[in-house]
């Protein structure tokens, strides 16, 4: 856990130094026993390294939170995945529609539930993260943006937390392609 905190801190500092921007998304848990959760929210830092005219290797650190219905903010689930992905634009230009599989590790997973006796049940876990998404990259002025829809699953202890996410982000790249945005 201590080494995980060091790694997390180093990654956040690197991305901050490179002026990565936070991005936001709305998300919904899906699957068995998820009807008790409200719409969730995510904030994440994502950056991309172009590897060809059509594709980027991406790195993303996020924080997703889902509150349980009827309890305000007292109970819910928080997950902080760290992921790497390969974003491939369908028209081969680095703009427009793309698909992006991702894989990573859930640095922090906490679910707080009410017990039958009214006490808190706090479950802590990590797990493997798998995600697949599609989106559309476009430019407003000289600023590149990314609108994306993603399905993500965190697998741990023989179960999985699954959710669908709709997000908007401003893209920060380490270097420019040959083609200007």
């Amino acid at each position, binding site marked *: *856990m201590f080494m995980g905190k060091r790694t997390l801190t180093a990654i956040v500092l690197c991305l901050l130094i490179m002026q990565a921007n936070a991005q936001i998304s709305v998300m919904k848990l*899906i*699957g*068995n*026993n*998820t009807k008790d959760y409200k719409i969730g929210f995510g904030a994440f830092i994502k950056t991309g390294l172009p590897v060809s005219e059509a594709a980027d290797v991406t790195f993303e650190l996020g924080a997703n939170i889902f509150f349980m219905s009827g309890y305000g903010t007292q109970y819910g*689930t928080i997950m902080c995945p760290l992921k790497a992905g390969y974003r*491939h634009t*369908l028209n081969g230009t680095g703009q427009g529609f793309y*698909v992006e*599989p991702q894989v990573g590790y859930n640095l922090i*997973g906490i*679910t707080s*539930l009410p*017990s039958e006796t009214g006490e808190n*049940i*706090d*479950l*802590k*876990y*990590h*797990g493997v993260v*798998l*995600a*697949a998404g599609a989106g559309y990259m476009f430019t407003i002025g000289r600023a590149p943006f990314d609108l994306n829809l993603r*399905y993500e*699953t*965190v*697998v*741990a*202890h*023989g*179960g*999985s*937390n*699954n959710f669908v996410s709709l997000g908007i982000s401003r893209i920060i790249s380490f270097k420019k392609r040959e083609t200007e945005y």
Partner: protein
Amino acid sequence: MKFYLIIAAITILLPSCLKQSIPDAMLGISGKQIKITATLRYEINGNLVSITVEDADRQGPGIHTLECVKSSNYVLSGITSSGDFVFTFFTDSLKVGNYNYTSSYGPMYVTTFQGKAQYVYGPTDHMSFNVTTYKDGHISGNFSGQLTPVITPGFPNNIYGVPGSVSIKNGSFTNVPVAY
């Protein structure tokens, strides 16, 4: 190529919807009334100690024979024919791995053998637990250890016998329910 990548991604991800959520898996909530048998067995100075609990998830009200309870840490406890057996996992997030307790952390009661309390106390004493699986709210694994008997009780001022004179070997636990 892109088509096949998309199909592969869907094939990998969609089956995850069929699984129970992580909290339900950790709490052992499957919706199915399956009877799970939990066991604890070990040899203490060559004497076999064994606990078997059928339908371990429904041990009823009162004291449970074999379970692992989460409070500030995780405490695995069993009631054997010769007395209690206790081991504390000093973590707030139990997972597969090794948990080793040595006397450098302080004296710790483990079990009672031949009417005497057995502690991790002597310089070479230890209890080593290896959790091999944690799934659907149950843990399994193996353990071993070396303990010191208490000759005259009076914790924290116990009078101890020969350090390291009691050994625990071939310890195993299966499907022990984890309760929160």
